[in-house]
């Protein structure tokens, strides 16, 4: 919130004045009020492997993270460039593979990647769009210096928190929205619906019927699935509701089977079609891939996009962006050591206590080592795992992440954050001005994942 001279940074000026005039006890009471609101609404998530497997609340911090319009414009340009490059990359690797032929990305990294789906080779998804919904994870290390941590081109979650956080803030502090011109985020469900409808498959005649596919109520993000279906006004379906009938994917209604044209699926590729992928999947729809390839359904995001979330592919993003857009990437990539390369592995093993080591297919903050905060024993154990399967890991330096203020009992205190803006791709790229700010609530911690005790904040993009 403050700059080096201890004055509030420009976007925080109005908020700072307001905050100074507040009674701290009242703010802390408001915090509790927010928590009750979330619990009552059932905005919860499940933590896998937790003893009490029931639902948890994600802690919510009531101090907004504020981004100026100028800062946002630069970010948005960078994100748009990156998302365009991702779609071009996917189209290329499933068709002409020019980037491989040009020698920019090694062939085996693509073709031997578990997230690369041979079934997608030569197939163009409706509208040519692979990543309908993207949630780019970004961190800031200095004024105007943004790094992309992950692209999340598969199934980014958390957008319901972006919306509910804003809703909660507007309910609790309406006056703040008079003092600041905050760009709205609440159109997201409507925009998502329009965006999905505009990419209906060739076999759809008339108004496209959209549905959200969820693995069910025990999935950690179930709340979000039902929330999005509800806000868009579309059916929330499970695999058991769907069946392929007469070459179309249809859902079982109280009146019989009715066709679906666009499926926003929140089920991983592996589970999508037991006839094509994992035969033991009970979450998918047998035969949906045939319907897809016959042009009778749109699947969002397209199967096979997960390869973009591979952290080894990530390390090539500067080359990928430049290759397809002809310009240098606007947003920085975190320098990444690919442990599959001998020299890199050697370096990583020697500098383990300075680095963050992640699994190439990992997500959610599981299975990673944060060198600077890990014990000697943990580092040693991790080194063994690394040596056993080097190509399963990448390593990155720990960045000096920016901090934002959170409310604690004694007042405000700085904590590290990241930012996940949400991007919708149809015939255009739309970036919702705002996003999900995740915050590491433990002092000094760099891990913001909700599964590891992170919290969230409302994120304001100002109109200026």
């Amino acid at each position, binding site marked *: 919130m403050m700059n080096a001279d201890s004055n509030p940074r420009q976007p925080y000026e109005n908020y700072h004045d307001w905050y100074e005039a507040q009674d701290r006890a009242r703010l802390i009471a408001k915090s509790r009020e927010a928590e009750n609101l979330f619990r009552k609404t059932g905005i919860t998530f499940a933590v896998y492997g937790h003893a009490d497997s029931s639902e948890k609340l994600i802690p919510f911090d009531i101090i907004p993270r504020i981004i100026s319009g100028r800062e946002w414009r630069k970010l948005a340009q960078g994100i748009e460039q990156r998302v365009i490059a991702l779609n071009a990359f996917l189209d290329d690797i499933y068709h002409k593979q020019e980037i491989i032929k040009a020698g920019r990305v090694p062939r085996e990294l693509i073709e031997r990647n578990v997230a690369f789906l041979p079934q997608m080779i030569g197939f163009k998804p409706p509208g040519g769009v692979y990543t309908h919904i993207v949630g780019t994870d970004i961190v800031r290390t200095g004024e105007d210096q943004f790094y992309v941590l992950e692209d999340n081109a598969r199934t980014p979650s958390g957008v319901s928190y972006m919306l509910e956080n804003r809703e909660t803030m507007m309910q609790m502090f309406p006056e703040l929205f008079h003092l600041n011109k905050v760009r709205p985020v609440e159109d997201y469900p409507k925009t998502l619906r329009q965006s999905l409808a505009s990419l209906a498959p060739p076999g759809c005649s008339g108004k496209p019927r959209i549905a959200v596919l969820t693995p069910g109520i025990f999935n950690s993000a179930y709340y979000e699935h039902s929330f999005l279906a509800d806000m868009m006004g579309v059916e929330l379906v499970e695999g058991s509701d769907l069946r392929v009938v007469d070459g179309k994917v249809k859902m079982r*209604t*109280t009146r019989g089977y009715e066709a679906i044209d666009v499926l926003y699926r929140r089920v991983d590729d592996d589970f999508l079609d037991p006839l094509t992928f994992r035969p033991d999947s009970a979450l998918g729809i047998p035969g949906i891939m045939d319907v897809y390839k016959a042009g009778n359904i749109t699947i969002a995001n397209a199967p096979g996009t997960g390869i973009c979330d591979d952290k080894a592919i990530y390390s090539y993003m500067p080359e990928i962006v430049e290759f397809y857009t002809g310009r240098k990437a606007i947003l920085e990539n975190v320098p990444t050591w690919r442990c599959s390369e001998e020299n890199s592995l050697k370096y990583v093993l020697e500098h383990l206590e300075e680095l963050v080591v992640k699994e190439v297919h990992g997500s959610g903050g599981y299975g990673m080592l944060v060198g600077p905060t890990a014990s000697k024993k943990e580092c040693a154990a991790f080194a063994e795992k690394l040596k056993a399967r080097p190509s399963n890991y990448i390593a990155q330096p720990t960045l000096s992440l920016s901090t934002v203020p959170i409310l604690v009992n004694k007042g405000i205190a700085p904590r590290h954050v990241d930012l996940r803006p949400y991007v919708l791709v149809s015939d255009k790229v739309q970036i919702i001005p705002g996003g999900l700010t995740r915050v590491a609530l433990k002092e000094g911690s760099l891990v913001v994942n909700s599964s590891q005790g992170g919290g969230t904040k409302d994120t304001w993009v100002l109109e200026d």
Partner: protein
Amino acid sequence: MLGRTANGLYWMFRYIERAENIARLIDAGLRMALTRSGSSDEDWDGVLQSAGVREDFDTVHHKLTSADAIDYLLRDHSNPSSVMSCIEAARNNARMVRTALTRETWEATNECWIELKLALSKRVKPADMPEVIGTIKRCTALIRGAFHGTMLRDDIYNFSRIGTFIERADNTARILDVKYYVLLPAIAKVGSSLDNMQWESILRSVSAHRSYSWVYDGDYSSTNISDFLILNDRMPRSLAYSYDKLVSNLGYLAKLYGDNHAAHETASATLMLLRSRSIEDIMEQGLHEFIEEFIVHNNRLGEEISDGYRFYR
């Protein structure tokens, strides 16, 4: 609407209804223990039977004590019909059909679950029983209020109501089935204090001991009590009332979808039967047989609804 959604709504409301009914049975059992001198743990035998869990109880407990019976009915997770299991199942179904519910109905259901999870987190002391029973009644009443006050009167509403009335008819029929011998005029020593107590207990377990007095001028008689619970169409927990509602809810769906199923015929036939017979007639032909047959038909209706509206296939 998805068949699975119709199924979820149906079961959500069956479970809420069941939770309430179990609470009412416990209430009647407690009352009986209070009013009867020398009350015994065996009073709970009948309560467990009315709840349909007498045999299952024995698989968990060696001996029948009132404390164990109450705990089993209230909060035992191994008992799928305990109040806590029912509320848990109702909420899981509500989560599944979240998009079909208004925010108010969902929040009332969610808060009911939050509150009861806390209230039933450990064994309830006898002194705290009235408060806990009160909480269950209040929480479920809030769900009902939110539901009636905010839901569109469409197929969602009608499937929910169908779940409520199938369960209610089943519960009332079960109470009659377990207690039928108390209502047999031949055996009953009319007017004895034991009978009065038993009869009052039956009425209490359907929350009807006050309304009964208004309708039948305060006289307890086995015929009148049977009439009230089976044929009286003003009594909201009677079989006739439940079927009157079922026929109208099913009729709505037939009109909306332009389609009749086996369920429509079964429900109408049962309602006709309830309307055409007198209580004397039923008692003469055998109360027990009548109730047993009713339960079989009611179960079949449930299956026909599930088939007709594609709950599972």
